[in-house]
């Protein structure tokens, strides 16, 4: 096996661009997922009628279908209804649609894990419902939800590799392209692995730090 370092050097900039695309899509997709997740968890906890049923249906649909099919539907299907989105928009909306349900479940789990007596203590001490939420319930809920949220963030970064299927030039697309053009399997796959390590290792370290920073409620 011959490993061609000059090939790596020549095409590394492509992978840097691909990595930036992966980061761009993932970061915005994850932010959207967090917003969607918060809204859904809020609706479920507050037991808002009708909306709650819609949220349940959304969560089931989103969790039980593959991102690839969601993306194809958005990218190829929706234009037939006159909704034409760029590949980037489709990718971000797709990740948000998929991740929103995962985030909602993690956040709801965190909220439900706060013992009832914590709210009772806050009530007896005279805290208003709003103070009880911001000073007692939310900090504890976040603490319990963080490991799940971090796992979801990593999961969504990985899932973002699927956007290469709608012709977005992320790292996966670069690797596939170079293998197709030059049959440079070793070098391309090597750079692909490195790119994902570069993206995911810091996130995983950051996640561990966040978990230890917020782990008061689980000790």
């Amino acid at each position, binding site marked *: *096996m011959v490993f061609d370092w000059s090939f790596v050097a020549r095409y590394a900039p492509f992978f840097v661009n691909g990595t930036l695309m992966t980061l761009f899509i993932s970061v915005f997709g994850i932010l959207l997922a967090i917003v969607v997740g918060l809204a859904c968890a809020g609706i479920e906890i507050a037991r808002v009628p009708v909306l709650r049923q819609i949220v349940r249906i959304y969560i*089931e*649909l989103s*969790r*039980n*279908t*593959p*991102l*690839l*099919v*969601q993306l*194809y*539907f958005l990218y*190829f*299907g*929706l*234009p*037939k*209804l006159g909704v034409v989105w760029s590949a980037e928009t489709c990718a971000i909306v797709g990740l948000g649609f998929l991740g929103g349900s995962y985030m909602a479940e993690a956040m709801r789990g965190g909220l439900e894990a706060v013992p009832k007596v914590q709210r009772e203590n806050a009530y007896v001490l005279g805290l208003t419902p709003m103070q009880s939420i911001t000073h007692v319930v939310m900090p504890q809920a976040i603490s319990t939800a963080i490991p799940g949220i971090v796992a979801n963030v990593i999961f969504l970064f*990985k*899932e*973002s*590799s*699927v956007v*290469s*299927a709608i012709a977005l030039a992320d790292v*996966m697309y670069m*690797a*596939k392209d170079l*293998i197709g053009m030059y049959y440079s*399997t*070793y070098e391309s*796959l090597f750079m*692909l*692995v490195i790119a*994902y*390590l570069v993206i*995911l*290792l810091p996130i*995983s370290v950051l996640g561990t730090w966040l978990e230890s920073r917020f782990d008061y409620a689980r000790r």
Partner: protein
Amino acid sequence: MQGAEILLQPGVFPRLLQGLWVTVWIAGVSVGVSIPVGLVVGWLMTLKNPVVRALMRIYLDFIRIMPQLALLFLAYYGFARWFDWNLDATGACVLVFILWGGAELGDLVRGALQSIPKVQYESSYVLGLSPWQTFSRVILPQAVRRLLPASVNLATRIVKTTSLAVLLGVVEVIKVGQQIIDANRFQYPSGTLWIYGVIFFMYFIVCWPLSIVARQLEKRWSHD
């Protein structure tokens, strides 16, 4: 709703179902083989041997950190060149899903085995049970209760991930859908919407019952 008639064309639905069968077949075989692999991996992970432990750690971490699509490429393009092993696309998919499922399931098995309190072993010993009786009558039934819900969830994930097979050129449900769309491009220009919509719900119909089963098991067994 123009374009919906594409679904009523002769052969369209049966062909999609055939494609779905390929999807389910790949997932089924992968899950089936993952179970024994996972049991062995899980057992290896509980061993004290530092070399085995380190190898298992690297295996699990590598599988976890790489996107499944990257693993599929590694298997499909990489194995062919490295080992002169001409794996077809379906074979590459099954192989990756087994390696992935085995690692994830192995970690679940490890967790389930380690979560059983030491006192369970001790009381079995005091009651005079043999090591095999202890394992089969005391430990295993408890481990399975902790294991099963997560394993069913893993199966759902594998079914969903099977969709990536289309990117290696496997003719499964999505590929069949694309062929139908291409063939009817001029007759039914908006068929795309309907075909992808149907595929979306086909995945949902396969995965949803699995999710419900997992949730029920979790609910029933979380109380003891």
